[in-house]
């Protein structure tokens, strides 16, 4: 466990002692998400999104298992089996709409979680592996979501499968064989459906396993915090339970209200009407667009329009893969020793520019590709790569950062963190008043 003052599990009843001596599972849970995990006391509400992502993973797995009991993975029957779920299965409409919107909300909370990590430098040493495992989860989520979107076998399912597996055919020589191997044929059909269904059922459990590794790796250095300053002693932390379970609990309720509002009152708001038309390989929709959470990447793909040495399509596909893969190198690209963006004035401006940039990319990915939209997405794509590969290394070398508080409890006492937590039951030690570290 991370800190020496972390409380050890003490069984309270004879029964739990009996269990603990034979299988220390209660001990493991206590140390992972119970009173035995000390967490910095100054976490703000952006730190709630990791737990929320876990909640949405569970919602997806539970509703998905129920849907799989009624769903029929066949090119002839899939569309009607989804409608059978919507119309004839008891509460089937609830399971299906929850699963459909649950995917969107899983991505919403994951994106907030990722951008929180980007702003507060959560990817920096010693949490590089936490960050990289998180990216692995994100990649698995994308694969799962894409295959799940194909399963209802509507028009967008079918043509989305065509377009996305078509990425691979951009690669010379191996491209087409790889695409045919993935689809199990020349076009999406029965073989595609059954393998996508099989993998769509498998991958969430792989995600759950990587989530365990993600949390395990996180518990070695412990959670980061808004100041980015390392935990020094016990007064900097509070036990996860009951303090953060209470905070996560009420916030999860508030966020689930938002989820319920969309699921019950605007369930098709985030979807596309064309997916209520059964798949038809002979009729191409006017605009093929992926689900909203892929739109920024779709814009990157489409913004390469000129054959320059390589095919434009290959440039687009390479850039799209690179846009995610580069995040794996972030811990070594950003060399600044200061973690938190709050103490990095120059970084902070570029960070917000990146947020706007990704939103613009999302808009451009969904819009009809007129020359203006293409031009906007080209500029936005260029900024995306400039930000991570050029600006970030330069900023981290030249930036003058602000003085850091000498400890977490000091920043709390001086009200520097907005979501400051109270001091715990232990008397606060001498938190040196004006000792402030300046880091360049």
């Amino acid at each position, binding site marked *: 466990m991370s800190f020496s003052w972390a409380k050890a599990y003490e069984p309270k009843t004879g029964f739990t002692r009996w269990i603990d001596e034979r299988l220390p599972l209660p001990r493991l849970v206590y140390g992972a998400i119970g009173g035995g995990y000390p967490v910095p006391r100054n976490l703000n509400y952006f730190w709630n999104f990791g737990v929320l992502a876990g909640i949405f993973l569970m919602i997806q797995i539970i509703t998905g298992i129920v849907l799989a009991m009624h769903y029929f993975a066949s090119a002839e029957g899939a569309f*009607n089996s989804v*409608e059978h779920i*919507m*119309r004839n299965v008891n509460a089937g*409409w*609830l399971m299906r709409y929850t699963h459909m919107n649950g995917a969107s909300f899983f991505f919403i909370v994951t994106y907030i979680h990722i951008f929180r990590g980007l702003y507060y430098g959560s990817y920096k040493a010693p949490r590089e592996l936490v960050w990289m495992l998180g990216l692995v989860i994100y990649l698995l989520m994308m694969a799962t979501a894409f295959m799940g979107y194909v399963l209802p076998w509507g028009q967008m399912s079918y043509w989305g499968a065509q377009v996305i597996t078509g990425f691979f055919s951009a690669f010379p020589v191996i491209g087409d064989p790889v695409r045919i191997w993935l689809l199990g044929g020349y076009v999406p059909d029965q073989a595609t459906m059954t393998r996508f269904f099989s993998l769509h059922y498998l991958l969430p459990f792989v995600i759950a396993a990587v989530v365990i590794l993600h949390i395990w790796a996180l518990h070695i250095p412990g959670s980061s915090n808004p100041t980015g300053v390392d935990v020094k002693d016990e007064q900097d932390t*509070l036990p996860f339970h*009951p*303090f953060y379970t*209470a*905070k996560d*609990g*009420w916030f999860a*309720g*508030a966020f*689930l*209200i938002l989820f*319920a509002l969309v699921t*019950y*009152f605007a*369930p*098709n708001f985030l979807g596309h*009407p*064309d997916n*209520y*038309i059964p798949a038809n390989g002979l009729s191409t929709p*006017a605009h093929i667009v992926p689900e909203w959470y892929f739109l920024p990447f779709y814009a990157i793909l489409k*913004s*390469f*329009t*000129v054959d*320059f040495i390589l095919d*434009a399509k290959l*440039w687009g596909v390479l*850039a799209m893969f690179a846009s995610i893969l*580069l995040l794996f190198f972030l811990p*070594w*690209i950003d*060399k600044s020793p200061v973690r938190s963006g709050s103490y990095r004035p120059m970084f902070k401006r570029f960070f917000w520019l990146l947020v706007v940039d990704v939103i613009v990319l999302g808009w451009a990915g969904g819009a009809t590709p*007129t*020359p203006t939209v*293409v*031009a906007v997405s*080209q500029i936005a*794509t*260029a900024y995306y*790569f*400039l930000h*991570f*590969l*050029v600006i970030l*290394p330069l900023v981290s070398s030249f930036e003058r950062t602000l003085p850091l508080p000498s400890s977490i409890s000091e920043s709390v*006492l001086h009200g520097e963190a907005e979501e400051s937590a*109270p*001091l*715990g*039951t232990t*008397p*606060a030690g001498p*938190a040196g008043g004006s000792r402030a570290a300046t880091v360049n």
Partner: protein
Amino acid sequence: MVRVIGFFVGLGFVGVLLISFFVNVSDYISNPTEPSAEHEFHKHAKSLALASDGPLGKFDERQLQRGFQVYAEVCAACHGLGLVAFRDLAALGYNEAEIKKIAADWKIQVPSVNPDTGEAATRKAVPADTFPQPFANEIAARAANNNAFPPDLSLITKAREGGAAYTYSLLTGYQRPPAKLIKEFPASKPGPGLHYNPYFATLNLAMPPPLTTNGQVSYADGTPATVDQMAKDVAAFLVWTAEPNLARRHAAGLAVVIFLLFATVFGYLAYRELWSSAKRQVRITGALEPKNQAKSRSAKDKASIKG
């Protein structure tokens, strides 16, 4: 090393993007996109208010019955309703006997086999059947409809941008093609068997105007059957066919949101109580709390202890 490689990879992508950008812009300047007929003449759906709108919307059973009558007497000749069963009509307020009669009297019969010879035959529909398809297959449908394929209407209000308002607008939107359109875009003049309708994406569609005269349907409830009324009613009916559980979903949603509101408020109060009790403890025991510091100073002063 990572940074150096990254730097050049980044510059590579940006360089290709710059070339793409300039080629794109110069293309646009040399061949600006010409205005299209669709861009100039396509109209967005008219607004339509239905009882099922809004977060607490419920279906108006009488309107759904009228809409069903329009479907049965007009639309059903060409459009199927393959995902809806006769038994589902109970939601419109028909009783069991009425549903049996509707099914048995339905103009199109259900494909079946002759129990004696095994030859293909048809039989009368029963409540458990879904609405029979008007054509045996797509080829038959196209042959009978000038090579156009009338789509199944079960999900139509969810499968079109604009939903019920689009359906209503399309049904009431037929008109003569404007003179300006024919003058400026001769190619967009409706071809043989096509009909001009500005609410349709390509402006010309194969479906002839289905609702043409007031009183085309005589409503059982005596409502005057204007074209506008019939279009509204059938749009409302098609909202129901696409989303039969809408009212139940709204009711369940209200209950869930109220439950979550209570749970969240109680959760928040528990959170505040928990964290402020820790804060109170700090006030009493915390050495750095200014009040406590002042107290200890004055106590020290009184006891004339230094330091």
